[in-house]
């Protein structure tokens, strides 16, 4: 038991552990909507766009969270409007906006080479970079997102299930879309330091699809996905300490392992039911 508690003696680990649990749960919650709306690619793209914002914020000496958050939000809105107002499909719009935005970050870094090392963390995540202040910000974002989803739960559900009918029933779907882009951007910047640009997409998608294999009930799906995100975040953090492997990668591998296990279980169950039906 004391061996299990050993890493908690380090402040960096305590911060990282709390941040991983919160960010994992947050991505799990938002991920349900991402997966159901078929937006996995936008999650992946936006985290890259936010990288551009983070670099610009750093160079301009703006606050990281404000700079990266606004950048991500505007990138999401730009993609949305481009897909809505022109014949350009959403996936192509994502390809343009987010990659160009990422390129801005890369260009700036290559110009000012002395920053290069600190941006490794932004790309691949770095638990050592998580300060007590970061934990507080992540906690605040997680709380805000959770409260918004709770408050607008019925509207989010209806708009995600059948947007057109939702409009007939008085749901302001355009507002919901914009708000959702804001929540997604918030969740991404909350997870950026821990997971890094390149790994966030997995944390968004895996808990939701894992939970989807277990339940058909939307309420249960939201709870289960959040829980899976939080637990795998915490477990991944612990394992990364013992295995001495990068925390972001460990978290994603734990999630992928959990998904694989549940997938096998679901397939076996299906097989058993199929055979029962044939008897």
């Amino acid at each position, binding site marked *: 038991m004391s061996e299990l508690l050993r890493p908690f003696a380090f402040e960096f680990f305590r911060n990282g552990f709390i941040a991983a649990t919160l960010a994992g749960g947050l991505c799990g919650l938002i991920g349900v909507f991402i997966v*159901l709306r078929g937006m996995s690619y936008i999650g992946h793209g936006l985290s890259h766009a936010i990288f551009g914002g983070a670099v610009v914020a750093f160079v301009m000496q703006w606050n990281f969270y404000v700079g990266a958050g606004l950048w991500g939000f505007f990138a999401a809105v730009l993609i949305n409007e481009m897909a809505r107002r022109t014949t350009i499909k959403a996936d192509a719009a994502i390809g343009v906006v987010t990659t160009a935005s990422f390129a801005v970050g890369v260009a700036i870094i290559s110009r000012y080479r002395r920053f290069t090392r600190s941006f490794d963390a932004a790309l691949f995540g770095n638990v050592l970079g998580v300060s007590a202040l970061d934990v507080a910000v992540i906690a605040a974002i997680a709380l805000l997102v959770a409260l918004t989803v*709770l*408050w607008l*739960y*019925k*509207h989010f*559900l*209806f708009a*995600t*299930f*059948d947007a*057109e*009918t*939702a*409009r*007939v*029933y*008085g*749901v302001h779907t355009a507002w919901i879309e914009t708000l959702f882009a804001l929540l997604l951007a918030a969740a991404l910047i909350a997870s950026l330091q821990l997971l890094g640009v390149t790994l966030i997409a997995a944390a968004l998608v895996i808990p939701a699809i894992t939970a*989807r294999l277990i*339940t*058909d*009930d*939307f*309420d249960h*799906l939201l709870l289960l996905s959040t829980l899976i995100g939080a637990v795998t975040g915490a477990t991944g953090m612990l394992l990364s300490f013992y295995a001495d492997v990068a925390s972001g990668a460990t978290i994603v591998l734990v999630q992928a392992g959990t998904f694989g296990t549940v997938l096998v279980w679901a397939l076996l169950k299906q097989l058993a039911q199929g055979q029962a039906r044939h008897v």
Partner: protein
Amino acid sequence: MSAANEHFPLVQVENLWFGYGATPVLEDVSFTLRRGQFAAVVGPSGAGKTTLLRLILGLLKPNRGYVTIAGERVNGRPSVHIGYVPQLNAIDWTFPVTVEQVVLMGRIRQAPFWPWYRRQDKARMEMLLEQLGIAHLRRRHIRDLSGGQQQRVFLARALMADPDLLILDEPTAGVDMHTAEQILHLLADLNRAGKTVLITTHDLNTAAAHVPWMLCLNGRLIAQGPPEAVLVEDILNRTYRAEMVVIRQNGLLLVHQKPHAHTYRDLLEGEFS
């Protein structure tokens, strides 16, 4: 429904024009529906049936003309008086929701600030599920239902807010003939209980037997009236731009595209001779 509204027709469509691009989909369409009417919009694919519904629902704004529901202009703002059932093949059947969760969506305008629905909303849902004979399915996933049951679930959702007007887009598309009959009987029951009902349909024959008022649409409103009056060859030819035959037998109306004056065998023989 308030007394003041009774002076207006429930639905008034006035000189409606609409086009997505340069070519108009709807040209100068006008009609009214009184309270208590049960009407079907019929016409071929591309006739503008769904576009007309979308204008009435407030999902589109007309280029010219207007729609009023209970005396209020719609103009892109969905009316509170409408319960809407979309085409079932537009539904994502793999979406993780149960019957209950779908039906409760219909109460969203009346929903409280907090995330769950009120007790009276759930009571209404139970009553409707009971009425529609699907109470035992309430915790099922929507995929695990028959076509008729699925249609009832979405009808229950539309009835949750107790609307004056029910609008259904192709309620008989993609279900077998027996289920189509059942759905139209159910709509007739709801109509007798006071609901005004407007549907679109491809299925002229089932509609002819069950719907008392028909609107024949093909870009323009070609004709409207009871089935016996509008299902005549002249009107149908103009609506479908094809030669149609109407067969009347024992009070039954059957419409079909005029068969070709040959059979498969004739063709074969023609080819070999």
